[in-house]
């Protein structure tokens, strides 16, 4: 474990080059490159806002203002979704490079998570903008006034936890994707289920009884607690956070084991 981290650290320059390569391919082309990063979560938040607030009139299932609540869930979800999809392809899509360079293979996974993480950071300005708008609007309409508080400091913690989770999932999925044909199709369905199993459009404690406890085992539930606490008048629920830390640790260890185990087979197949 320590040696793996050290090897990654030794290759941090290569990691930086690869991340820059990813981002330059995405952003160097056009200004629209950046817009795509924010259009997706904005559009999704908009859709759910229209459906739940204007049509179903169920804004009470999230914190107020509901749009901000959606956004604080949607942005980390986008990082999760993008990283799992691209992380699973990390080895396959760079087959030529994997075959021709002698870098620690974990690097290909980590690089995807980092690149998507930077995109996530770049999407945060819309969260700041939305918060400021609601703070201004809230002066006249106290029902939509966000409660920005000191718990914002938990955001980096949420990011760190999410990064570990994503690296673990990437290490788990990348070799499987190379060896099993239908991985992408299965993954697409699983991710759709995961979207609704993550408290993005609702609050986890609005789920009845045992279902709430089941949702705790989705590590993203605890991670979203960290992201959201600083924006709304609420305390962090530590139950899901603790479960999330445990599940994340398990996923990470499992990912490392599977990756090591399958690495020789993957190299033959790729």
């Amino acid at each position, binding site marked *: 474990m320590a040696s793996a981290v050290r090897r990654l650290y030794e290759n941090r*320059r*290569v990691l930086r*080059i*690869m991340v820059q*390569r990813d981002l*330059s*391919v995405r952003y160097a*082309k056009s200004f629209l490159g950046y817009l795509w990063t924010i259009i997706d979560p904005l559009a999704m938040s908009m859709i759910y806002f229209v459906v739940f607030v204007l049509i179903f009139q169920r804004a009470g299932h999230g914190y107020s203002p509901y749009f901000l609540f959606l956004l604080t869930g949607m942005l980390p979800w986008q990082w999760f979704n993008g990283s799992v999809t691209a992380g699973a392809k990390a080895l396959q899509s760079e087959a*030529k*490079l*994997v*075959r*021709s*360079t*002698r*870098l620690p293979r974990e690097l290909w996974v980590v690089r995807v998570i980092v690149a998507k993480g930077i995109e996530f950071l770049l999407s945060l300005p819309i969260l700041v903008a939305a918060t400021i708008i609601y703070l201004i609007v809230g002066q006249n309409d106290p029902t939509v006034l966000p409660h920005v508080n000191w718990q914002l400091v938990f955001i980096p913690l949420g990011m760190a936890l999410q990064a570990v989770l994503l690296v673990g999932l990437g290490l788990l999925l990348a070799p499987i994707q190379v*060896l*099993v*044909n*239908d991985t992408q199709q*299965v993954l697409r369905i699983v991710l759709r289920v995961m979207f609704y199993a993550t408290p993005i459009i609702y609050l986890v404690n609005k789920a009845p009884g045992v279902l709430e406890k089941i949702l705790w085992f989705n590590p993203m539930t605890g991670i979203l607690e960290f992201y959201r606490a600083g924006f709304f008048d609420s305390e962090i629920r530590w139950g899901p956070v603790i479960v999330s830390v445990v599940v994340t640790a398990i996923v990470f260890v499992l990912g490392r084991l599977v990756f090591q185990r399958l*690495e*020789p087979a993957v*190299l*033959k*197949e790729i």
Partner: protein
Amino acid sequence: MAKPVISAEGLGIEFYRSRRRKLSLREMIFQRRTTHPRDTFWALRDVSFEVAKGEAVGLVGANGGGKSTLLKMIAGVLIPDEGSVKVRQGVAPLIELTGGFLGDLSARDNIYLTAGLHGLTKEQVDERFDDIVEFAGQQVKDGLDMPFRHFSSGMQVRLGFSVVTTLDEPIILVDEVLAVGDMAFKAKCYARMEGLLSEGRTLFLVSHSAGDLKRFCDRGLYLRQGQLVDDGPVEEVLKHYSDDNS
């Protein structure tokens, strides 16, 4: 005597004979196993040898003999199933030369990226940039800011060769790349390879050209169906190989 820079011990790697070894989920669920034949073969087995610093070794043998597989294991891009190979110095692999290049970026950016992936810092690339471009030839020089995918395949390989051979790594692995490029470029490649050898670098060359092997190598390894059958002066090993095939 100094420690050998490469030592292989009982090296073996096993492949599936069927091209479709990929698992399908349907089979895993419904049959609890895959229906593809579990037929395997050893691409290499019981291969042991040592290479000292500065040696130039040529790999000889028919197609499917395991030459490229051996080279890949030395390069660290395949992991042996049996035995081990220890490589004590850095390796510059001339395998899949254009692997690191991205079609959408310019040749200029690609040079920095690929050299960076192989461990050069930006400053080091700055220093060598003119050399790299010069070596790759005038066409490449004229198209430096063109997207890489607009290059002809010959130009792509030339640039790849140029980048990888400017690396400082003391061990150089060459897999059949000398066969590419036009005559003028080939002559340049030969000159560069000889230059690298005279600097005391260790060379591993896979080639079907007896001329190339004799020209660069002093030692030959003969692989036949995954077995190391001969190890000695390159002339003798080549003779052994041609006797086998006559």
